[in-house]
């Protein structure tokens, strides 16, 4: 008993946070009343095989997959029909690429016909927002519980960055120049993030300058490669809407993409070298450079892998669908995903460039300061 009470006392704010988040998640799971669309909850499913389908893009005749039909019992959660039960038919294919297999507990959007009495209804999409809330709550809880105040600071910086990014998307829609805006964004993000992470001091100053310089260099590399290597076919970029300057959008994406990684490298090197100088103010230039290289090595290997997996994971479904439609892996790599590859390579190049750039900048900044102190 006593132990329990002590535990409660020690972890009071964690428990409080947990309760608050739990309430929010619970609310998100019961927010159907906020929607104007009709939402229902699947309470019962009956699944039966309804036939076969073949993949027409392959020579292999054995490539058949089963089609299923589901009879769903759905309880309506909002609107005038709240509480009513309806039966809806739905079908899906084994692969579930453009069809969904429903199970008990799923919340779905319904399209209902008929005035007072429901004459017919179809399922029109899955309601997913409650899971978005659940995931976010889990992340917030993990960050705050593990890192306390520092975690709170990281969260604030993240929220600020997200806010600024959303604002800029609205500005873009109002007709702001995307290229100028993304340069401005890079500047704002860098200054804000570094200052929040590290506070205003000479280290952060060096880190900010090196990040900006590296990003600038990476953009130049992109233009150089474009100049000598020719245009790429932007049509294979995802989510093209027409009327967009695709080259600019791609470039803006590149600037932002590796920004976090470049900042990470710059901050680590600036902090590390500063530490070396503080411990031994008479350290030789040569040794300072080799320390910088050492720190750089330690982080780049894994950092490049972070970028690699982050970019490549999203390609998986598309890759598999295309492969299964008798397109060769090499063809796909050559013609259909050049952007992901170019983006990854440019990200890697930025990370690598960040090492010498931040070593030089930090060294210069530290030397200048020392000279200033002597004068």
């Amino acid at each position, binding site marked *: 008993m006593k132990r329990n009470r002590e535990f409660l006392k020690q972890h009071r704010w964690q428990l409080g946070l947990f309760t608050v988040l739990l309430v929010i998640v619970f609310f998100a799971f019961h927010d159907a009343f906020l929607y104007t669309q009709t939402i229902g909850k699947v309470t019962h499913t009956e699944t039966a095989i309804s036939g076969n*389908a*073949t993949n027409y893009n392959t020579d292999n005749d054995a490539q*058949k997959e089963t089609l299923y039909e589901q009879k769903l019992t759905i309880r309506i959660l909002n609107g005038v029909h709240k509480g009513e039960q309806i039966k809806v038919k739905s079908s899906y294919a*084994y*692969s*579930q*690429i*453009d*069809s969904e297999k429903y199970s008990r507990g799923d919340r779905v*959007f319904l399209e209902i016909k008929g005035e007072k009495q429901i004459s017919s209804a179809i399922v029109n999409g899955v309601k*997913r927002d409650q*899971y*978005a809330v659940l*995931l976010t709550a*889990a*992340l917030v809880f993990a*960050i705050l519980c593990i890192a306390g105040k520092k975690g709170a600071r990281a969260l604030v910086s993240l929220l600020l960055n997200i806010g600024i990014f959303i604002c800029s998307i*609205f500005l*873009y829609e109002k007709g702001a120049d995307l290229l100028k805006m993304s340069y401005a964004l890079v500047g704002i993000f860098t200054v804000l993030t570094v200052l929040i992470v590290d506070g205003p001091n000479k280290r952060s100053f060096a880190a900010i300058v090196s990040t900006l310089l590296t990003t600038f260099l990476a953009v130049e*590399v992109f233009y150089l*490669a474009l100049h*000598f*290597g020719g245009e*790429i076919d932007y049509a294979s*970029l995802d*989510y093209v809407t027409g009327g*967009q300057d695709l080259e600019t959008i791609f470039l*803006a*994406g590149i600037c932002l*993409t590796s920004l*976090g*990684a470049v*900042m*990470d490298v710059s901050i680590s090197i600036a902090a590390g070298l500063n530490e070396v100088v503080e411990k031994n103010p*008479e350290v*030789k230039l040569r040794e300072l450079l080799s320390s910088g*290289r050492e720190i*750089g*090595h330690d982080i*780049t*290997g*894994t950092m*490049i*892998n*972070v970028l*690699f*997996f*982050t970019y490549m*994971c*999203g390609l*998986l479904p598309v890759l*598999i669908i295309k*492969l*299964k439609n008798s397109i060769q*892996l090499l063809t796909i790599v050559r013609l259909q995903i050049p952007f992901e590859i*170019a983006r990854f*390579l440019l990200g890697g*190049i930025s990370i*690598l460039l960040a*090492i010498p750039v931040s070593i030089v900048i930090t060294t210069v900044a530290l030397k200048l300061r020392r000279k200033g102190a002597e004068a």
Partner: protein
Amino acid sequence: MILILAVLFFLLILLIGGERGAMSFIALCGNVVALAFAVLLITAGFPPLLITAVLAAAIHAITLVYQNGRNIKTFAAVISSGIMTLVLFLFVLLLSNRMHLSGLNEIDQQGDFPVYYSFHIHINMAQVAVSMIIIGLLGAVMDTSVAVASALYEVHRHSPSLKKKELFASGIVIGKDILATTLNTLYFAYIGESMMLLLYLQKYHYSFVSMMNSKAFLQEFTCIIVSAIGCMLIIPISAAVSAEMFEKKRVPEEQKKAVRQKIRQLSENLTDEYRKQADASIAEQLLELPEYQAANVVFCFASMPGEIDTSAIFADAFRRGKKVGVPKCISRGIMEVYEIKSLEDLEESGPYHIREPKGQSDGKSLEESGLILPEEIDFAVVPCVSCSGDGKRLGHGGGYYDRYLEKTRAYKAAVCRSKEMCADIPVDEHDLLMDVVISEKI
């Protein structure tokens, strides 16, 4: 264009990273091949979840074990990252079916996909969705777990007496320091990737609510959030696993103490005459080593009472005009080496009352102070409590020499009287092997 970028990337990684850059590059290529292979296997009809599990293991081996070498740090990182991946695997498995993230999203379904491609491919895309999320988080989780494990290892090395609980606590502190930048790296990586999608959603006036319910947005969103959750949870896991493993490794310390005690008792009973003879013979042999004679910069300890007398070695080195360096304690477990021109430059100081180079560093430039960098040393004469014939060395337990000599390329000669030698010296990870052990000829 891709080719130019690839060549540039390759050149940069070699130029800036050197040998280790080449290793990172090979590891990256290994990961590319592993991923491509996994995709082909899934396409061939193998169960996606099983392939993902195997792929995750392969990626761990390539990225962590190959890149960082087989040592206790790496194993701690692999174990913790493996646990984390497994836990998230189950979590995502539960979640992704509920969230209906499989296959193509609404936007892709409207494009030219359905025109050109058949969707009846007989592959469980719900499982592929799980693979997608897991592969996405691997990089970040491995990164954090390595960072925590290797930083914690440094802590453990500098203060080996720390208990499991204290190690865990300092692991958490380390984790807090890297957390903000890790989150930022993830955030920007995904923002850059999903910018096109966000612009698309904006252009077609998706409301916030419809965005939060769309498959397109939630596929990305789930990837980033699950990765971030992984990066957070790996901190305590990695701290706990590392603390546990490093503390287990500490056991030899007890054995070392026992051996040290035994040898000290032994040496108390040695006669002065034996010592004199032995020391002279040792110095004579050492001075004949070709490695010593070729060396320009010689590192040698100034002997304390009871230790082997090194004055003959100093005398010879001065006579031959070699640059001679003597260690000086800087802080706990850390020493530096300073040049001396004669034994007059030594004075007794420090907590152990060792003869050390006189106070050099105050206000003088590097050249004046005579600091010798570890890389400069060609030949090192190393003291010990006891040594085994095959080069295992037992020091006083401060770790000064192990830590310092690790940074040198010097030829390491330990000196030890034969009666103080011991066949069975307990060693652990960070004990350095000597290149030669010199004892007197009988």
